């Protein structure tokens, strides 16, 4: 009797679990579906009352309009370059600093680490104009370097990798040191390889946020061939106003490469991000 009711309530729980998960999934996927459906409608049809769900006539001109308005090839390449170098910089510099903050004794450590922490509280909009002025003075706007510039160092990466090094017992480093490794070799040959998963996590975290960065690329690179996917989309909006079918077509073009990468490396993506939550 008792087990029967237990089983019943367990079954109810299972049903409820699936119900909520599926309902939630529908809510998560619907905007993407609507994006696709809208991109296939003519402007006239998209503004019908009540809205049609599936396009009455499949209209592919929106994709043509989006393609002729934005050089997507260049945007893909620029975005790729920006993401790649921001990731490399974040890994190299943050690994070094994170290791020093976690494992080495030096004067000023607390003050300097506080600088790292405080940076994470600042709204990034305040950096835009001063950073722009720095680049403008050396004539480096409208360049790939300009896209990478704000991501040369990463406070979050430093904080995150420090946590990773804190989790590694100091004895490992000390043993290496006794074996005759100098400080650099201890770091580079012994400790660094132990943070592989954290570096993978940082890679994904940095990539996702670089890809989403909007205001900086808009201000620093105004030539349409030097834009990123995000800033290109904003430009498209300036041009087509509220012509949603074209905007949706452009959005799809902008999202596809990241979506494909995501579908291939889905597990790594999610597990990497999970790590950034720390312990």
């Amino acid at each position: 009797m008792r087990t029967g009711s237990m089983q019943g309530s367990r079954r109810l729980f299972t049903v409820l679990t699936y119900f909520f998960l599926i309902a939630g999934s529908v809510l998560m996927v619907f905007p993407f579906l609507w994006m696709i459906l809208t991109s296939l409608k003519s402007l006239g049809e998209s503004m019908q009352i009540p809205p049609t769900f599936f396009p009455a006539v499949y209209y592919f001109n929106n994709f043509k309009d989006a393609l002729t308005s934005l050089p997507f090839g260049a945007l893909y390449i620029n975005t790729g370059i920006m993401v790649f170098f921001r990731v490399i910089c974040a890994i190299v510099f943050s690994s070094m600093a994170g290791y020093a903050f976690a494992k080495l004794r030096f004067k000023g450590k607390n003050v300097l680490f506080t600088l790292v922490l405080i940076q994470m509280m600042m709204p990034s909009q305040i950096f835009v104009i001063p950073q722009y002025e720095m680049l403008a003075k050396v004539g480096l706007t409208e360049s790939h370097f300009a896209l990478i510039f704000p991501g040369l160092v990463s406070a979050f990466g430093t904080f995150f990798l420090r946590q990773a090094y804190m989790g590694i017992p100091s004895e490992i480093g000390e043993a290496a040191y006794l074996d005759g490794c100098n400080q650099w070799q201890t770091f580079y040959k012994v400790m660094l390889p132990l943070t592989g998963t954290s570096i993978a996590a940082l890679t994904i975290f940095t990539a996702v946020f670089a890809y989403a960065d909007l205001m900086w690329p808009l201000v620093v690179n105004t030539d349409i061939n030097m834009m990123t996917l995000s800033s290109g989309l904003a430009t498209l909006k300036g041009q087509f106003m509220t012509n949603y079918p074209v905007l949706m077509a452009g959005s799809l073009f902008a999202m596809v490469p990241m979506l494909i990468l995501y579908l291939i490396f889905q597990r790594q993506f999610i597990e990497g991000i999970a790590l950034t939550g720390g312990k």
Partner: protein
Amino acid sequence: MSKQKTMVAKQEQRWAWLMVAPTIIGLLVLNYYPLIQTFLLSFSKTKTFGAVEFNGIQNYIDMFQMPEFWKATWNTILFCILTVPVGIALALLVAILLNAKVRFKGGFRAIYFLPMVCAPAAIAMVWRWMFNGEYGIINSILGVNINWLTNPSTAILACAIVAIWSSIGYDAVLLLSGLQNISKSYYEAAHLDGAGPIRQFFSITLPMISPTLFVTLIMRMMASLKVYDLIYMMIDQSNPVIPNVQSLMYLFYREAFVAGNKGFASAIVIWTILLIGIVTVVQFIGQKKWVNYDV
């Protein structure tokens, strides 16, 4: 011996400085120099093209007397209240459901995480379109006629919904990893003691996951208090609802870049940073009461 020790310590120190140097120099140039500039600007009257004139705390006096400023502060806090508790509660629910024995766990997880890999500009566009008062699919499905984005009482709610939708997967993934670290043996023991699922949640799950919950909370709070992109892309400058929805950083943007009032805008930023600082400190003090680090 002691001499050698100091030698070693000195050498260690030199290496440490060398290793933190790129990051620290980068932060000083990229972030702290702008911060100091902003701080100084907040005490000056700016004219066009960078000419400045020291004017004491006048910007702050003006700011505190400006109704839009207080409204923006309230909007920011309201946005935070709307998004953070609901967002994290929903994310926790999703994480718990995903932690149960379900099929297609990976598939579900991937779906909830989907918004993270999409350009925010694209997300804002499609939601704006769905929320459209005249031709939007949301009104059509719900069978209502709400001007979501142009009605003062719903515009901020609509923005909050998009914010929650965008972040729920990220938060759920963080929380899920916390949940997976909880040993099954706790639940088995509780089960033997006759504790139901609700009691298990409050006596095991919640305390055990509290450190992860705390990290998620802090991250989400900071992001909400700094919100700008999303509202900027959802609400146009020509939308009459702006005063009811603009956040502090949106007000900053409008003052600095539209009205060309950088000194005044800088005062708004300093205020925002203070606000974030205060909230963060309160959080860190408050955590001692509920975050459980012993397990």
